[in-house]
């Protein structure tokens, strides 16, 4: 086993265990904590794939920003006991399990069966180049300039929209 394989199993295992813990814990804060851990595992996997930028952004954006927001909501709203919620709405649990199984089966199918066998030639040098911030920045500001600028409008519009929905009174 190379170092890469060992690290893959460590990070992959971490991500899987954390993901399972996320959905099995009763306390939503603990679940959120495990979700953060899961993001950490994923970031490690991205690093192994030479995608440094995505790895760091995964931490900064998902673990650092989005999950803080989640925790905020959980801590401040103090959601009711989930147990009673599931006891009252039994079908939700089964729907969730059904959707989860479907998605899992689908992904497994796509990965193992659906894709016709093709010999993937991994160009190591190229994958290193693609993962760097420089090449991502270059792609964003040349080839994908219009979509990139369009995202700026999405964000601006979303900010305005959030203001409209959140603000009670306008002066």
């Amino acid at each position, binding site marked *: 086993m190379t170092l890469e394989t060992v690290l893959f199993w460590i990070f992959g295992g971490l991500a899987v265990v954390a993901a399972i813990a996320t959905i099995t814990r009763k306390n939503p804060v603990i679940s959120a904590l495990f979700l953060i851990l899961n993001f950490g595992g994923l970031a490690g996997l991205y690093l192994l794939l030479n995608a440094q930028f995505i790895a760091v952004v995964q931490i900064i954006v998902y673990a650092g920003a989005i999950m803080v927001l989640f925790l905020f909501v959980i801590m401040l709203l103090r959601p009711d006991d989930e147990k009673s919620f599931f006891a009252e709405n039994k079908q939700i649990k089964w729907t969730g399990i059904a959707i989860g199984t479907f998605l899992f089966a*689908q992904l497994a199918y796509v990965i193992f069966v659906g894709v016709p066998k093709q010999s993937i030639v991994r160009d190591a040098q190229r994958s290193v180049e693609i993962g760097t911030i420089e090449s991502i920045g*270059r792609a964003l500001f*040349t080839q994908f300039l*219009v979509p990139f600028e*369009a995202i700026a*409008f999405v964000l601006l*519009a979303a900010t305005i*929209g959030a203001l*409209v*929905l959140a603000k009670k009174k306008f002066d």
Partner: protein
Amino acid sequence: MSLQYFFDNIAMLRSELVIAVVFTAVVFVDLLASKKTALKLVPVISLVGIIAAAIYLLTGFYQTAGLDSVGLKDYLTVEPLTNYFKLLILFGSTFIVVFSMYSDEIQAISERHGEYYSLLLATLFGMLLMVSANDYIVLYISIELVSLTSYVLAGSMKTDPKSSEASLKYLLYGASASGIMLFGISILYGLVGSTSISDSYTYFSDITKFSITNFVVMFFILVGIGYKISSVPFHFWTPDVYEGSPTVITAMLSVTSKAAGFMVLIRFIVEVFRVDVTSNGFWTMLEQYRWEQIFTVLAIASMSIGNFAALRQKSVKRMLAYSSIAHIGYMLSAMAVLSDSGLLSILYYFFFYYLMNLGAFVAVVYVVNKTGSDSIESFNGIGYKMPLLGVALTIFLVSLTGLPPTAGFIGKFYIVMAMLEAKMIPLTIVFLLNSVVALYYYIRVVRHMFLMRSDDSKKYTLTVPENGILLLFSVPVVIFGIYFTPIVEFIKSTLK
């Protein structure tokens, strides 16, 4: 790689650029100008900006040359067809801004006008981009832009719980639909290795790579598009959202956003699944994906469910919501033909649909302004209280039914011709039967307007510009029902 090609080709995005500038200008004016000036200035800037964008678009309507070189071509398509759709969207948006200026619902939230108009322009920008999108990333971004702003616009009457409900329902459906679509896109990217829509043709056409995964991907992307055009079975959000939103926004959702969604559907089918066009205009498709059957089922379901559900509605806005589902069904049945004449008939239909649907909505806006309700009872006796409105709305409804001598008849006529050309007799029969069903609920409104007496004897009057807008829509609906050659010729020229 330099940015030179980008600046060389940026003029191809005429209307988008203008709208982007106007959007930013509105945001700034709203922030910097005093409250009173902003209130007056913002709608005017929006209106002038949209008209300017439309004129600028027309100056280079048939120009496709510059795009072929490099760069933008990879993810944006600019051709007369997309320009036609952009023109429709700009045309619709112009009147949506005008309606907003005359709608009491919107005037009541004047403290949020800056936000309202800037979101309207952002939606418009998203729709223009959506029409041109030839890359899944651009497509997804533009759909998100349109959706995010629409959620907020649907809930812009915050004091009305129905409006908030509409906003939330729209958000939940929209988020799931675009999530599913994104999932499909990501699987497709894994399969193809490129986000370009044209590139996925190479993958789908490879018979050795045919598998159930392809169907899953196809279906997932169809969910996203189907939600945007609200075809059955992705239509569940439509009635509630249409009913709760301000009437002007309902008009926008049922007209402009449908057009953008339909262009995406056309692009997806044509780019990914069309092999060739035969000399008599029929499309050779990738056999294994059976789009003809899919569209036939979707069309029949949309037409029937839309029309039969519309029969029992008490709210006129809800009725128009179901009727818009039915109209999407009509257009999907033209899509099922999978031929140039089918596509052309959709383009004709959209033009006429714009006129009559916008007209019908503006009439409803006026009635809601006066009576404060959109229930069918509130239309009692309207025909005598506001004769011009009564006559105009009758024209629109007759046209929506598809009776001669109105524009709606011409639209349906071309669809039926396209279907007969392809010898799709069963679908044609369902189509015609549905039109008969539609007649019942449209005429019901006319009956309430002219044959029922209202309880009170209030007098309503419309101002001159309000009447002018009604005439602006009702006269063309009648004229195009009789003399439609210029429109048909113009639309044909976009498909060259």
